[in-house]
Every structure is written in C-alpha cells, then in structure tokens.
C-alpha cells in the first residue's frame, strides 16, 4: 500500500544522494550568500522528502519499506540495498530536520572557508542518512566509516582553540572501534553464508561462542560512538571544540548511531550474546548515568557540561535497550529521538550566546532572562525538557525506560532515578547561574535577542518537545511493530 504509486521511484536514494550531488555543485557557486541559500534549500528539500517518507510510512508492519536493491559487488554478495523500518525512519527524519537547522546555525558563525564547510555539512548529511537506510552491512560500514572524514574536518578546521587535538582524538577513537566492527562483520559474513544482506544475516542462528566474540567487537565500536563509559573521553573534547553545527550533528545524530547499531545488529543478530552481556550492559549504563551526571555537575564550561550530560542520557538509552522489555526499548528509542531534539537545541542556543559573547563559562553569565527574554524562555524550556519534566518529550522517554527497567535490574533502575536527580541539579544550576541573578557579562546591553533566523531553528525543535511530551502516540505507533519484531528476534534465545 505504502507508496505503491511511486514504487519505482528510488526515494531513499534520492533522499541520501541529493545532498551529495549538491556538495559537488557547491564549488561552482560564487558568493557566500548564494552558497548558504543553496545549501539551505537543498537540505530543506531533503527534509521534505523525509517528511513525505514519514507520512506515507505504513506503521502496521515491521517489514522494511521503500526497499531498493541492486547488486554492487556481486562476487562478494555485496549489494546496494536500502530500506527503512519504524526505528530508522524516525532517525532519517531527525537527521533531515537537524540538517537544515545546522545550516541556519552556521549562517553567520562560520566566516572562513564557507564553501568547504557547506560541502562538509552536505557530505555528512548524505552519509548519516545512508547509515540509517542501509540494509547491507558493507554499505552500512562504508557510510558509517566515511562519516569520519567530514566530521574530522568540521571539528579540525572550524573548531575552537584546541580543535586539532579534539579532531584527532575523535577520529582515532572512532576508527579503532570501527575497524574491530569490520572484523566482526567479516566473521558474520562467513558464518552467515557469505552475504552482507542485513535481513539475511538476522535470520541466521549463530554459534554461541561466535556470538560472544562478535558481540564484543560490535560493542567496542558502538560503545565508542554512544559513548559508553569508559570509552567516552573523546566526547567532551569533541563537543567543546566543535563549531555549533558540529556539536548539533554530534549530539543529535552521531551519538544515536551507536545505539542504532545495538538495535540493528547486536540485539537481533546476536540474541544469545545480548542476553549474556545484558547485566554488563545494564551495569555500564548505570555507571554512565551516575558518573556522567556527577561529571556534569562539576563543569564550568557549558558545552562540556552538556557533553557530560549526554553521556548520562545516553546511558539511559543503552539501559533501556538491554532490558529486553517493550517499555524499555520503546523508551530507549523515544529517548534517542528526544536527546537529538533537546541536546541539539541546547547546543544551538549555546552557540547563539557564544556568537555574541564568546564565552562558554557558566558563571560569567547571569541575568540573561532580563537581557534577552525570548532566548531565556527557549533555553529554559529545553533545559526542562532535558530534565524530563512532565509535559516535555524527555519525560515520556525516561518514564518508559525506567518502568521497563524496574523488575529487570533494580540497581540500574535506581541509578537511572539518581541520574534524573543529578540531572535536575546541574540543569537547574545552569538555569540559575545563566538566566537569573545579576547581569555579570560585560557589554550585556548590546546582546541582542534571538533573531528570525535563530527563531526559525529553535521553533520546530520546541514543537517536537511538546508534541512528544503531550501526544507521543504517533511516534509510539510508528515504533510499535518494529520494536515488537525486534523483541521477538531478541527472545530467540537458546540453543
């Protein structure tokens, strides 16, 4: 039924490669404004395609939809195969949404080498969409790993003072993880009958020992990306040094890929190993929630604080995934989406004041609510959403994860609750120090409030905060069949 009229249009390929084609055209353009508008309009078109995808998506089935498949390297069983299910379509949408927001966020912030920056943005957009759509492991890996190139350049060229260190750290951490992932892929390839087709590989029952080893290889790759404690140290550096758009992409989409990897590969392909390692995963997640939260409490640098809070929040997501309960996994996926929206918005707003004051030091601010009230309100709402206040998106995800976890692992669930408390402490701390109190920042009078461009980035994100917070049903119903199918696959345990 879905898109049956347009069944022959390779909609996913268009979605993925439109930014790439645009990236090839950017060098031919002249004039900075033209480059900005061109990139912006391309990504808006891409976003509209993603919206169309979401609207026509059939949420009664767990089948892959909009599937395209052509042989790529036939002799090795590699094909160019794309398709989306309930989980991936949501992240395709999130990626496409954050895409054009990133362009707007960099409108004036990026002054040097604008063309190259926009090329990087377009390239990374293409690759991220590719990761979420790929149904062939080799293709997935190509997108996954190629993403390092533009991200490395975005941090390294347009980042802060210590950007080179941060870019190297980001690249090498991720590369090392990814390469082990590659070996894991190859082992699965030979064990699964020489095919890279993800759906075919899911159908195979692998040996118990093989599952354990492959799980470890995958775990290292995904744990770096998520990031899970103790592989998290690259994240604060990368976030602090990256330009605003880089931080939004990192927090909004890149971190999701680790969790997406667990959902797409570890859980359905390696169910025995997933169950075997579940206590470890729950434990690591609990540690990440509390440890990340405490680290966030101690930060003075606002970007660093949000980075550590991301580690804490991502811990909640991995916790939810490894409970193998319907509430837990649904909450985890919802939380992934939320985290993309909320943290993306926070980095966006931090970028807005940073552009005006060039300070990331929390105590240096104060009284922003008086100076720039609209900004203050937006910032406050996103902080509350990050805190998971009822009525915002964060609440839905967090409550689902916690309700899924209690009964499975009470210690980890308690860690989740503790994490929420610590989260309230540091997020309210930001609120108090930056928005209330006396105006401390020099030249405060000259700071202007959100302009139209910035408003148009923040408003859609605000919309999702409340939509998900007040009426999450559409999102839940998209996820329901897919996650039910996932749990079925995960329960296929025992030899």
């Amino acid at each position, binding site marked *: 039924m879905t898109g049956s009229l347009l069944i022959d249009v390779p909609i996913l390929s268009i979605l993925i490669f439109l930014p790439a084609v645009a990236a090839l055209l950017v060098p031919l353009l002249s004039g900075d404004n033209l480059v900005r508008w061109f990139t912006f309009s391309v990504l808006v078109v891409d976003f509209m395609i993603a919206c169309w995808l979401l609207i026509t998506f059939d949420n009664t089935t767990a089948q892959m939809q909009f599937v395209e498949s052509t042989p790529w*390297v036939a002799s*090795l069983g590699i094909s160019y195969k794309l398709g989306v299910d309930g989980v991936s379509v949501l992240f395709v949408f999130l990626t496409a949404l954050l895409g054009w927001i990133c362009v707007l966020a960099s409108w004036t912030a990026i002054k040097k080498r604008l063309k190259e920056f926009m090329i990087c943005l377009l390239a990374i957009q293409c690759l991220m969409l590719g990761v979420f759509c790929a149904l062939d492991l080799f293709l997935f890996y190509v997108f996954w790993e190629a993403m390092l190139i533009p991200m490395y350049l975005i941090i390294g060229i347009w980042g802060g003072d210590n950007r080179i260190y941060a870019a190297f750290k980001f*690249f090498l951490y991720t590369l090392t993880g990814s390469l082990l992932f*590659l*070996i894991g892929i190859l082992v699965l390839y030979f064990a699964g009958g020489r095919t890279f087709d993800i759906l075919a590989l899911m159908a195979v029952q692998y040996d118990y020992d093989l599952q354990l080893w492959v799980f470890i290889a995958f775990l290292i790759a995904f744990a770096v990306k998520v990031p899970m404690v103790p592989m998290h140290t690259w994240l604060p550096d990368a976030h602090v040094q990256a330009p605003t758009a880089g931080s939004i992409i990192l927090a909004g989409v890149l971190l999701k890929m680790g969790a997406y990897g667990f959902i797409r590969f570890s859980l359905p392909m390696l169910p025995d190993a997933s169950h075997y390692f579940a206590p470890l995963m729950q434990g690591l997640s609990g540690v990440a929630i509390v440890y990340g939260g405490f680290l966030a409490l101690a930060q003075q640098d606002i970007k660093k604080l949000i980075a550590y809070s991301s580690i804490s929040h991502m811990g909640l997501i991995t916790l939810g995934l490894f409970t193998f309960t319907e509430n837990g996994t649904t909450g985890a996926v919802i939380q992934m989406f939320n985290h993309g929206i909320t943290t993306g918005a926070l980095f966006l707003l931090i970028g807005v004041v940073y552009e005006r004051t060039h300070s990331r030091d929390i105590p240096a601010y104060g009284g922003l609510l008086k100076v720039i009230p609209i900004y203050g309100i937006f910032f406050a709402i996103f902080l509350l959403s990050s805190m998971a206040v009822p009525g915002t998106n964060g609440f839905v995800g967090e409550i689902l994860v916690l309700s899924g976890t209690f009964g499975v692992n009470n210690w980890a669930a308690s860690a989740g609750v503790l994490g929420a408390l610590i989260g309230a402490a540091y997020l309210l701390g930001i609120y108090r120090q930056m928005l209330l109190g006396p105006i401390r920042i020099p030249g405060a009078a000259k700071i202007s409030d959100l302009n139209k461009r910035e408003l148009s980035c923040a408003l859609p994100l605000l919309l999702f905060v409340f939509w998900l917070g007040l009426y999450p049903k559409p999102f839940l119903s998209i996820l329901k069949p897919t996650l039910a199918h996932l749990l079925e696959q995960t329960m296929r345990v025992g030899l």
Partner: protein
Amino acid sequence: MSEIDLAAITQSVVATGPEIIIICGACVALMLSLVPHPRQHQILASISIFMIGLAASMSYFLSDYPQTAYAGMFVIDNFSSFFKIILYLGTTLTVLMSGKYLVKEGVIQGEYYSLLLFALLGTMIIVSATDLLMIYIGLELQALSIYVLTGFLKSNARSNEAALKYIILGAFSSAIILYGMSLFYGLTGTTNLNQMAAALSTQDQSDPMLILATGFMLVGLLFKVGAVPFHMWVPDIYEGAPSPITAYMSVAPKAAAFAVIIRIFVVDLAILQPIWIFSIAAISLLTMALGSFAALVQNNIKRMLAYSSIAHAGFLMLGLVAGGTGGITSIMLYLLVYTFMTIGIFAVIIVLNKGASRGESIEDFCGLAQNNPALAFMSLIFLFSLAGIPPTGGFFAKFYVLTALVDKGYVELAVVAVLLSAVAAWFYLRIIMLMYVKQPTEHTAIDLNPSIRTVLLIATIGTLLAGLLPAWLLDFTANSIPSVFG
C-alpha cells in the same frame, strides 16, 4: 639436438614482443639522449610513453593467447598480464611526473628515460619468468637501473649517498637470493619452477637444506619488498632518490617482487608453505607495526611515506598468509590500488617540491587548501585512501585482504592488522590537518603543468573508482590469478 627449431624461436620472439619493444625503446632513448635539443626531455618522454603504449597493446593482444616461450623459461598468462598493467601504468605515470622535476633540479641527462625503460623491462621479465635464472636476470636488470636512477641528482649529496647504500645493500640481497637459488638447484637439479615443483613433491619437507634454501630465497625477496627486519634501506633511499623515482620504486619493483613471491611460493612451490607461513605471518605483523609507529615521528614527507610503504608491504604480506584464490586476488588488487594512490601522493609532493636540496618537509603541505583547493582535495583523497577509509580504493583493498584472512580463519591476525592500521591513520591525518588548518609558510605559486595534471587526474579517478565501483576491478583481478586456482 643442435637442429634449430625456427618455429619455436619465432613463437618465442612474438611472445616476448612487449619486452622487445621496450628494449628498442630504451635503446632509441639512449641514442637520442646524445643529440642535444632544447626540448629533449619532452621528446624522450613522448617516445618512452609511446613505446610503453605499444608494448601495452602488444601485451593486450597476447593476453588472449596464454603460452610459454624459450623452452618454458618465460610465460604469458593472465597473472603476468595483470602485473604488466601495473608496471606499464606505474612507469607511464612516472615518466609523466618526471619532466618538470628534472628540469627544476637541473638534471639534463636524457639517459634517465632509457634507464627507466630498462627498469621496466627488468620488472616485466620478473613477472613473466618461470625459471630461477630468468627471475634473477630480471631482478638484476631492474635493480641496476634503479641504482643509477637513485643517484641521478649528481650534485646532491643525499641522492649520492642513497645510491651507494642501495647498491651495497641491493647487491647483498641479490647474493642471498642467488645463494638460495643455488641451493634449490642443488636439491632439485633444475631451475625451472615446474620441474622443481615435481622434484620437491617427493622431497622430505623437514630437510634442513630445503628450509635453508627457502629461507634464503625469501629473505632476499623480502629485502626487495622492504619487510622488517630487511627494511633498513627503505627510508634512506626513498628520501635521497629523486621524487619520481621514489614513486616508481614504491610501486613497480614492489609489485614485481610480490609477483615473484606469489609465483614461486604460493603457486608453483606451494608445497613449501608449511615451512614459511608462520615466519611470514610474524614478519608481516612486525613490518606493519614498525612501519606504522616509525612513520609517526617523521618530519620528511618522503621518509614518512617510506615507512608508510613498509607498513603497506606488511599488510600485503597478510595476503600471502591467507593464500589461495582470495589471498592472491587481494594482493593483486591491493597493488593496483596502491599504484594509484601512491603515485598520486608523490605527484603532489613533486608539485610542492622546492628543490630537492632543501628536502621535502611535511611542512610543505601547510595551507595547501588555501593555495590550491583542488590539489588539497586530491591529496585528501590519496591520504584517506592510504589510511584505508571508505569510500576510497584503499579501503576496498584493505577490506579484501581482511576478507581473505578471515575466510581462512586468521581472525586474530586480522584484528592485530586493523589495530595497527588505526595507528597508521594518524600520520596521514597529520598531513591533512596541515593542509587544511595551518597557514601557508610562504606563498608560492603552485605550478601545475599538463603532464602532472594528467597524473593527478588518473590517480584520483583510479583511487575513487576502485572504492566506489570495486566490482569490475575485483572480477578483473580474480580472472587474472594463476590458472591453478582458476
């Protein structure tokens, strides 16, 4: 007995047509180099490329007719044809890069081209030879030509030093190979690889003499490849040699040496595999480790690429360990992709060259993205390809080696290999950082003449196509492996 079989001779001469064409080309170039002419370099380069083209078409024609020549000393098969493609390609691109460089360095001798063609001839003989004597002749012809070419910058002390070192160490390694060959002759009574295989099939595998013979042959050949612990010559010689010759060295002789190793040890004398497989596995890991770690601290770009080529040689040797169809295909594919990306990055170095006497510092790459965005972007592709990041050809090449390894169950080896290649990524990234982040140290106009543009273009297209559409390349390579595995 003494009757001369005219038909056989004619057949042999036709079969070695490409080699004969290259000899003629080399001689013509040698004679023409005596005639002073203002555009001598261009003329000689054109003649060289024309002759290589002629030889390539002849090879293409011959590739449909697999045959042996000169009483089984020489063979034309898909395997040798494939390697000849790499050799023709590598030499042509080297010739194209050379002109401007030589003029800039004030080298006016036209023998350069003649020597390059002789080196090509040597490597062509190596890949087609099926007789130890023939292999040795090819190795020596190639090595002698490159000794001279290494020292071609006569007034440059480093170039001279490199040439001298190369001659001494090269002669040493040749002697070791020769000794191994003589032991094999003593054991089997023949130098023909097929007959040796037959003789060895009845031989006791634990015969110390056999182990010694295998060891000597391999040590000599690994020396040519630049594997640890026989790698000491590589950095000095790469640094001192004229840049186009360094590029040539890292491609053609290495490909030829791998061809010979595959032909002797993986195909014809596969029976010896239990003797060498563990040491080759260990050496390949050591080679990768040393290459990757030593490259981290280099400040001369050519030295750095020397260590990088050592690391790549180590990765290639993993293909030997894997063996079989997959292993051989992976080595061949890797060598072809490696040709594109290495020649590409050396072309960039030649463009940035500010006089060999000053040395090629990594700092030369500073601010390249501002001076010339297109050139910087191409370097970016070559460097990421060398680091093995998709969607470049370098990734697919590495991927295929790993596939062959995992297929044979050497998963642990594959894990160590990828971890070491993550180390190696660091120094390629360092250059990229310099290009894109640092300010140019001095503003120099970048001079891109048409021939170097051609080289860069071919290298870029080759590197990218191998990554994006690897299917064709893979099928082509898989069809070129020796027929025993067909």
